[in-house]
């Protein structure tokens, strides 16, 4: 807590309610997320589970292709799924907070009589899960490099591109989580299951497991509205460099072009999620569902 205290007492944080709400919530999220009685369970949860689910995919791939793990498409699929760990962690990390605070901890009411900034609070609460996701992601990729000789080297990675696209990707994922969380807040029902549906749709239409080119031409544009599509493409290009397989749908776009599209989508999502969140707060107050519990 003492390091946290020093951060919180800096003049910048003291002046900005948004920053203070974000950091305090991140601290709280970390307390909750790291509160595993058993570090072994924590390791299983954050490492073994994602690696395990990728191995299932790898097995299916090897059976179908007779073990052609040196084909460029293997790296494409492997990385798509490794990166996808972050999608689930960030979206559910943010969208679950409302339900957690309202029904599990029952603190939503207490929190919303304080002057904290609710939007940045929710974002902050998602940070811990995102960090866990990042760790799983790094471990999964490392495992892929060692076990399947994925063509990735530390020196070969286009770091600026990887970091820029991943930051934008995480921001846009968090806003999607925020939109889902907001809808949960005003409906007072278990809308989060829609979060799973969105996650699933993203999986199919964002090129995580197969390039958009495989989709029928009419469905392809669906992928273009998801920020994840651009983030996955950019992150794979950054990690694999020249050995990245090119597929016609996105090959025509340069890195800069894709980054710009991702930045614009992220900015739009930030604005839109802010609007939806405020609407949701208003409706929740109108309907009196701040401390409502959804019937399980």
């Amino acid at each position, binding site marked *: 807590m003492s390091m946290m205290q020093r951060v919180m007492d800096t003049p910048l944080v003291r002046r900005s309610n948004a920053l203070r709400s974000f950091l305090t919530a991140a601290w709280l999220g970390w307390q909750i997320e790291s509160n595993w009685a058993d570090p072994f369970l924590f390791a299983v949860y954050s490492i073994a589970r994602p690696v395990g689910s990728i191995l299932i995919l790898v097995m299916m791939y090897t059976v179908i292709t007779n073990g052609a793990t040196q084909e460029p498409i293997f790296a494409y699929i492997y990385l798509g799924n490794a990166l996808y760990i972050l999608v689930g962690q960030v979206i559910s990390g943010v969208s679950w907070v409302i339900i957690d605070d309202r029904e599990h901890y029952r603190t939503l009411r207490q929190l919303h009589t304080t002057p*904290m900034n609710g939007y940045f609070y929710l974002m902050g609460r998602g940070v811990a899960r995102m960090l866990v996701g990042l760790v799983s992601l790094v471990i999964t990729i490392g495992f892929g490099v060692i076990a399947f000789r994925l063509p990735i080297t530390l020196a070969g990675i286009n770091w600026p591109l990887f970091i820029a696209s991943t930051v934008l990707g995480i921001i846009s994922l968090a806003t999607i989580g925020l939109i889902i969380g907001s809808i949960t807040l005003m409906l007072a029902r278990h809308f989060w299951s829609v979060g799973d549906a969105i996650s699933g749709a993203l999986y199919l239409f964002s090129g995580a497991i197969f390039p958009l080119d495989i989709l029928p031409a009419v469905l392809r544009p669906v992928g273009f509205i998801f920020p994840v599509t651009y983030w996955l493409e950019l992150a794979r290009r950054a990690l694999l460099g020249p050995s990245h397989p090119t597929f016609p749908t996105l090959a025509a776009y340069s890195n800069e072009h894709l980054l710009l599209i991702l930045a614009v989508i992220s900015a739009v999502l930030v604005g839109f999620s802010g609007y939806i969140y405020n609407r949701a707060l208003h409706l929740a107050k*109108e309907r*009196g569902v701040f401390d409502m519990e959804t019937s399980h």
Partner: protein
Amino acid sequence: MQPDYAIETKDLGRIYKIRGPKHKGDAKELIALNGATLQVERGELFGLLGPNGAGKTTLIKILSTLLLPTSGSAFVEGMDVTRDVQEIRRRITVVSGGETSGYGLLTIEENLWMFARFYGLDSATARRRIDDLLNVVGILDRKRTKISDLSTGLRQKMNFVRGFISDPSMVFLDEPTLGLDVTAAREVRNFVKEWLRNNTSRTILLTTHYMAEADELCDRLAIVDRGRVLACDTPENLKRRLQREAVFNLKVGRLGHKPDKSAMIESISGVQQVTVSEQNDHTELNLILAEESVLGSVLSHLTQRGSNLISLEKREPTLEDVFIQLVGRRLDEDTSHTTGGDNG
């Protein structure tokens, strides 16, 4: 707008829409607040007294910006609860008794520290206030205990402390002594009085089910029932209303299970209010009579029904009597099943 009032409500109304059990669109409307008009002065300890479901918590939720009114208006220190949300939240805190909420994995200190952050306190101030306040409620030695390991009462003390950490100018206390033992409840009451004495521009709005607590603490109180404010005055003035009337406590031989026995006695002219409670071997009657002479008719009525008098006592009117006269029933009579459950 009169900025002089700490709290001002005008014709405040709140209607809840409740869905039928099967979501068949048969939405029912529940009137939780019905034209409530109140003015609370700065520096006052103002009480809300009312049976379950009267609308007390609903009023607190509206004033603390958690709920929008469906009609009327409400102002906290001159600020509109529907518009000036952020400004109001900076100045107020809310503590509800019997709250089982909290992040169980945080310690008392961490939890309070977190809330202090949300109010923008620096660490040094937060620390000092946390220690001071925990000391006042006698749980300073438990500050490193995880919330999940606390008893209900200790948790409540912690929540109480949370309400004062930010040095608010207004505190809403929704049944703050609910479930506390006698000593703890007294400590809480003393703290509240002391806190107001130290700064006369602060205001406390309190709800309670304990008549004695309301009588002891409140400068003024409003008696509410079914969303309406039935009376609003100092405890003394409220009791003085009954000065002309005579209040008697009667013990008689068991009246048995006549369902209409209280109605029967009430129909005697001059009887303003009667509550009947069956004890093991006798029946107790609480009577508010327009004048003492009415007692004769009551006694003769009872003897006609073959019931013998065990004891008779004339009492000073209490808040309870005021309440019964206004609301028509005792505060501890459970009528929640007729007004629907409370989740506040």
